């Protein structure tokens, strides 16, 4: 099958699913709805694999012209290259798994068909985002995923007590994303101004040919792009929406807010690598923003008690890690971590979803514990995920993190030190989460305990698949020091198949350093594991109640008060301004001003009326007066003339 047709099918399938479910889904049986939605995504995944296998070089597929002016033409055209195909694989692959999971998870929800409609729409927009061959299509998908994320976060808007809160969380996400979108918009305008095109390849070629475009313009463009990335990928300062986004159903958190959408920022940066390479300044900014994000997010995750909140902050922290890699210009490394992170974070979220499902919508880990016996499959897979993200040796997370650490150590030891801190914290909060949830005594009360049950196959199957991936995902990009032959397969794959990346070379450390690095990392992970085991499993320590928290714990539990700070800094002033302008300026000043003017003019009538005294003699007097005025006018005229 021709590549372009395959590509169009990949994009079209989710759209078809969306259309059918949206139009007639209400009438169809649930299994059919879910089956259809899952099927189309899985079919897309299979097609993507064919693309992947037959991939060589870059290919552009032009669909139609959106706008065709003489100065400016914008096409709905798509690009097949290593990067886009890889992203497609992740999106469709993990997407289909999560669809499958949702069939079980959402089975009791009345908005079943709506949910799958939105999910398919999301997959479609996400595919547009990664497959588009120019920034406009990318922007198209970019906005689209924002909209879907809003719809899915506020999916339970009818919920009696949490309905409004859910929709507000959705709104927060949408608005923060919009702030980022402004950055992307401005970047697009500047690119249009510079190159008069939005096609990735044309821009890249133009940059290759003339090197005059370095410096100022590039810094502005890349900075705006990075603002957009911070919006989507929840980096400082725009990260606060992601934890709130956990209001959405758990599969949504897994798909959108862990595996795919939030990595759009990284995708954008990798895609625009040829721009960032010309703006080292921006790369430093990215580095430090990513560093701060990963550190602070990890810190905030330490004392969260909502199972999904912990995972959310860990997501933010991991994304920060990826941006650190980007800051070093190690694009393939970042993307490698995107991949493994997609595996284990999706696994963790789905696992937590399974837990929540089994616990009947209970999300507080203080009410959990000892679930290992109650839901063994979930427990096992969740443990794997935890070990993967904490960097237990030879699991996927271990390798991808290690790459980033290596880059850090090579470029800047200080950054490396901070990263070590962040990684340690990651391990700490992840194991805390694991032990509090699955080990020790059940704290949810007997009534609940009797009801807790292991989830059905449709939910556990994805878990198992993802567990396998999280274990062996590291094989994609083995470090060079063992397995010489297959080492760095992923790096080669990307850097040879993606425009611009071939120019970029990751740093490679010498044997001893790399070895030491790995050993140190493993030591940290395992050490933390043992410590956590002793603390939570043996001593049976549990999470404190909120009021018992002190000092740094309070700080962590309250997320460093960032939300409060934003409220006082931005939200409240805006509302106050709106009130002021709306009530004072608009109504008091302008509208009543107009009224006052009109009244002022018309009320002079009270004076002018007095002129009409009603006395004939005064009339005659005024007539004579008028004559005198006329004569005076005559004299005046004469004096003017002469």
């Amino acid at each position: 099958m021709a590549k372009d047709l395959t590509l169009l099918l990949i994009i079209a399938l989710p759209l078809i699913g969306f259309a059918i479910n949206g139009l007639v889904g209400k009438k169809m049986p649930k299994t059919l709805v879910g089956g259809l939605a899952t099927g189309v995504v899985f079919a897309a995944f299979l097609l993507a694999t064919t693309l992947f296998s037959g991939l060589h070089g870059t290919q552009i597929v032009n669909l139609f012209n959106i706008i065709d002016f003489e100065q400016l033409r914008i096409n709905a055209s798509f690009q097949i290259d290593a990067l886009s195909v890889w992203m497609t694989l992740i999106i469709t692959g993990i997407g289909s798994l999560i669809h499958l999971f949702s069939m079980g998870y959402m089975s009791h929800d009345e908005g079943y068909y709506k949910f799958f409609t939105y999910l398919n729409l999301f997959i479609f927009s996400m595919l547009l985002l990664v497959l588009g061959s120019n920034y406009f299509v990318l922007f198209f998908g970019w906005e689209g995923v924002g909209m879907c994320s809003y719809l899915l976060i506020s999916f339970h808007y009818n919920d009696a007590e949490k309905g409004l809160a859910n929709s507000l969380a959705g709104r927060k996400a949408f608005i923060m994303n919009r702030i980022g979108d402004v950055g992307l918009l401005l970047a697009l305008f500047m690119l249009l101004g510079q190159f008069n095109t939005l096609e990735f390849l044309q821009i890249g070629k133009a940059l290759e040919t003339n090197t005059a475009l370095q410096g100022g313009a590039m810094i502005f463009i890349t900075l705006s792009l990075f603002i957009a990335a911070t919006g989507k990928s929840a980096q400082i300062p725009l990260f606060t929406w992601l934890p709130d986004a956990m209001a959405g159903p758990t599969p949504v958190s897994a798909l959108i807010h862990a595996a795919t959408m939030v990595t759009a920022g990284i995708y954008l940066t990798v895609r625009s690598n040829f721009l960032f390479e010309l703006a080292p300044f921006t790369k430093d900014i990215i580095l430090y923003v990513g560093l701060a994000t990963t550190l602070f997010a990890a810190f905030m995750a330490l004392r969260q008690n909502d199972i999904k909140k912990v995972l959310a902050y860990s997501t933010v922290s991991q994304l920060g890690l990826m941006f650190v890699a980007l800051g070093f210009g190690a694009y393939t490394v970042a993307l490698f971590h995107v991949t493994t992170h997609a595996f284990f974070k999706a696994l963790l979220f789905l696992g937590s979803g399974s837990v929540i499902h089994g616990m009947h919508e209970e999300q507080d880990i203080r009410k959990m514990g000892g679930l290992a016996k109650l839901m063994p499959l979930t427990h096992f897979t969740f443990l794997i995920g935890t070990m993967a993200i904490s960097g237990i040796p030879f699991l996927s997370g271990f390798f991808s993190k290690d790459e980033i650490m290596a880059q850090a150590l090579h470029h800047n030891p200080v950054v490396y030190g901070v990263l070590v801190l962040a990684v340690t914290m990651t391990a700490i909060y992840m194991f805390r989460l694991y032990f509090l949830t699955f080990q020790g005594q059940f704290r949810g009360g007997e009534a609940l305990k009797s009801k807790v049950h292991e989830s059905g196959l449709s939910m556990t199957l994805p878990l198992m698949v993802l567990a396998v991936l999280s274990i062996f995902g590291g094989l994609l990009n083995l470090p060079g020091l063992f397995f010489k032959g297959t080492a760095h397969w992923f790096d080669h794959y990307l850097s040879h198949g993606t425009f611009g990346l071939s120019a970029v070379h990751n740093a490679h450390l010498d044997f001893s350093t790399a070895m030491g690095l790995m050993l140190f990392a493993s030591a940290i992970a395992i050490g933390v594991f043992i410590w956590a085991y002793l603390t939570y499993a043996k001593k049976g320590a549990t999470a404190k109640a909120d009021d018992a928290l002190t000092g740094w714990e309070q700080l962590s539990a309250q997320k460093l008060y960032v939300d409060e700070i934003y409220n006082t800094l931005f939200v409240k002033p805006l509302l106050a301004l709106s009130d002021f302008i709306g009530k004072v300026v608009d109504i008091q000043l302008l509208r009543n001003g107009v009224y006052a003017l009109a009244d002022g003019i018309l009320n002079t009538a009270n004076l002018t009326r007095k002129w009409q005294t009603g006395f004939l003699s005064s009339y005659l007097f005024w007539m004579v007066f008028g004559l005198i005025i006329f004569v005076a006018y005559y004299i005046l005229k004469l004096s003017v003339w002469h």
Partner: protein
Amino acid sequence: MDSIIILFITGLIGLFAGMSKKPVASLLIASFGLIGAGFAAYYRGSYTSPFSSYAAFVPTQGIVIILLCAVTLLAVLGGFKRYKNDDEHTGDYFGLILFSLCGAILMAQPNDLMLFFIGLEILSIPIYVLVGIDKGSSTSAEAAVKYFFTGSFASAIILFGIALLYGATGSFQLIEIQSNLAIGIWQSPMAMIGSLFLLAGFTFKIGAVPFHFWGPDVYDGASNAVLMYMSTVVKIAGVYALVNVFGQVFRDSYFFWIDLVSLLIVISMFYGYITAWKQTSFRRLIAYSSIANAGLMLFALADIHNSNLFLFVAAYALATIALVVCNQAINDDSDHLANWEGIAWKHPLIGIALVLALFSLAGIPPLAGFFGKFSLLWSAVPHVPYTAILALIASVIGAFVYLRLLLLALKKPSVSIRIQLSAEQMLVLALTSVASIGAIYFI
């Protein structure tokens, strides 16, 4: 000439027919006379004055005579209802109106100051009588007194102006005066002051500031029937006389008096419209609005070569007559604006006529009032742009006045009792409405 003769004769007949206590008869005679005069003017428009051997100074525009006759016809039709019942005055009413119409026609386009003065008096004296025609009412008497004294005072002023002009140029023939002024005499103080006194007289006749004082009181005291005639025909005749005599004779001193005229325009419009805002009596409101419209009419002097006056005065007259007829339909002597609440609903014809008339006065296209204002300003704007700007601002205030009246009339009444309109009133309203829309074809 023929029209004047026809009017005079039919006026006499009407006067005597009045004694036969057959109101309809005198109405028929009067209308016949008016229509006949209109046709005569249409077929034999230009005439030479019997009082002089000179050719007419301004070529007589039959259209003006037709307009005057038509407006008068509408006025008497509208006013007829008032005199149907007290038949002792019917004859006087028709007779006097026709006589003063003769004066109006004479005055509108004379070729001789003497003729003009006589026309003026023939126009005015019957109206003095008409204003005070119902002996019973004290307001009517007061109005008559005020109108008479101010009027004759104004005549004296005009006469003084004429005398000075004669002193300066040694002739009453407009054509001679003009030619004498043209050779530079217009700069002599006597000529200038004479022209100003004449201007004052005209200003009085059309009722613009500062010679407007008679307007509100007299309109208020007079009956609707007389008001209809007085507020339209007198103004039309006056303003045409102003254009044809003043504008033409003193065209050489244009730059001497135009500023004064502009001043009068602005003051009259603002004063008229603003003062109208606070009026509680309909007739006074109409009086002040007519002061403002008089100010607008003065724009005709801005361009002495073509003063596109016709559409404007026609639209003004029609709208005013329509309004007064509606006011008459209320049939309440206290003449309080509160009575206007919801009258638009009491008869469909009243509703339509009111909306059209008021929007026409406010100058909203596609009604006659707009085209009138447009054609007037069309020729005026290039000469007096700033005056035009001020005038338009003033007419926004005017729109306030008219729209407030409209909103009052359109208010939905709780109980809608239908007013009975007499046939001729319906005719008048229908004609005015049709005319105010039909003006489209002049543009």
